[in-house]
């Protein structure tokens, strides 16, 4: 269910959201510091508990990771990556979930009006009431986040705990984090905190440290501090995510041209009829002139 008390900035397959223009709402963001994450998975448990997504059978992949990828009933996954760096081992943990893009590819690809919405505060949410389970959002998402739920036939993903944020609480994962590597606040505050942490890391031997807030999708409402900021792929993050060109070309160029072409054809047929008229048959054309039966 989408939150009824929040205004909607953008809605899938719709011209406008429901912004009244009367309220000014700050954009919110999660802050994830991968350098202080200890991989305790408290956020995973909190997510399952708060959102009541039920139990999913874990899969042993040879690491501490709970599942190979996100799941329709598992929206928050700590990814464990190991990599040799400068002769040593870097054990990289990253909290994987919906990035809540400023320009959501899922929302662009979605054909069902109101099935994916972006609230005024920047949270991107799926409304199962309107979702038709077509899976177009999977193609639209540059982060491979939305998941199809086999039982309900609907898409599911992290809601950024919009039901909590709506009433002034922080998301469940943030609440559960014991190290403070997860924080929640306005986007401006979280970016400032991230930049300060990056400067600290750079001064402490991680010259490549960076804040992951990719421009290709207009920035995300999840900003991530990476010690190896020059290699987001080491953390399973795309280096330059953007709404797929195919989806943009399809929705922004082919579709409007197609609508014009179809209306044009109908108008053209009428115009033809008025200008040229029917190609009338001349001569004997009496349908009653057939030989009678027998």
């Amino acid at each position: 269910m989408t939150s009824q008390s929040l205004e909607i900035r953008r809605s899938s397959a719709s011209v406008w959201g429901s912004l009244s223009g009367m309220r000014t709402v700050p954009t919110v963001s999660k802050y994830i510091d991968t350098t202080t994450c200890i991989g305790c998975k408290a956020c995973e448990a909190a997510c399952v508990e708060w959102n009541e997504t039920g139990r999913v059978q874990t899969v042993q992949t040879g690491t501490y990771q709970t599942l190979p990828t996100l799941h329709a009933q598992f929206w928050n996954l700590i990814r464990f990556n190991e990599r040799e760096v400068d002769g040593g081992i870097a054990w990289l943990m990253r909290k994987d979930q919906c990035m809540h893009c400023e320009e959501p590819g899922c929302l662009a690809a979605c054909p069902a009006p109101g099935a994916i919405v972006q609230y005024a505060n920047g949270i991107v949410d799926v409304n199962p009431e309107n979702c038709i389970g077509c899976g177009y959002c999977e193609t639209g998402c540059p982060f491979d986040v939305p998941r199809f739920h086999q039982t309900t036939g609907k898409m599911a993903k992290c809601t950024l705990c919009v039901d909590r944020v709506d009433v002034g609480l922080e998301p469940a994962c943030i609440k559960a984090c014991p190290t403070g590597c997860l924080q929640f606040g306005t986007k401006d505050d979280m970016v400032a905190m991230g930049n300060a942490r990056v400067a600290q890391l750079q001064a402490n031997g991680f010259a490549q440290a960076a804040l992951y807030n990719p421009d290709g999708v207009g920035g995300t409402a999840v900003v991530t501090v990476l010690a190896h900021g020059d290699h987001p792929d080491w953390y399973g993050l795309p280096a330059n995510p953007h709404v797929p060109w195919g989806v943009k070309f399809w929705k922004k160029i082919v579709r409007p041209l197609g609508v014009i072409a179809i209306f044009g054809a109908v108008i053209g047929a009428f115009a033809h009829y008025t200008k040229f008229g029917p190609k009338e048959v001349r001569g004997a054309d009496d349908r009653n002139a057939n030989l009678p039966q027998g």
Partner: protein
Amino acid sequence: MSTVAPHRPLDAAVIAARDREDLVIGNEIVRHNRASRLIHWTVAVTFLISLLTGMPIWTPVFGWMAHLFGGLSVCRVIHPWTGVAFFIAAAVMFVQWVSDMRLEPDEKDWLGPKALQYMRYQTDDSNVGKYNGGQKLYFWAVSLGAVGLLLSGLLMWFPRAFPRVVLELAFLIHDITFILFAVSLVFHIYLGTAAEPGTFRSMVRGTVTRAWARLHHPRWYREVTGEEPRRKA
């Protein structure tokens, strides 16, 4: 005083049109037998339902169509199945009709300005057989388009079985093929009804009048009647 013939719904021409074609009966000529009409209507109905269930998914501009079926989620369930039914019907139609649809060399002009000249009633149709070049090209376009819609549609139906780049391509192919289909279908229906009176009967009764055949398909008229369609001036 004129005499009115008694109403006979099943006249000789209609009975002949069950399983015969190219047969002259009185003032009428059998053009499409029952099998031919049945497959055309099957293609038409399956395509129409696919069209009405697909267009609201395509764009909210046509979202109102979804209400005909009980909402967008119903459309999403119906559309792939009627799509498959349409493909099967189109494949049967292809087998049934292909022998009549071989393009003659001069009919390739229909790809160019000849189609527009035809719409301006400027073409010399004296050598037109049972089907003109435009009809034949439309047949090939529909057959090819059905394959394109099926293949891209299957990818969209089972998105998790294919890589993302292939899916992006499938969306575009399905869209572009559909747009071409929709635009040409508007003219197909227009030409078969309002623009060329007497044509629609061949899809319901199976017959056309001699005068219709003389006007639109003179060579076919010669072949089936053995008469010259036009007196020399």
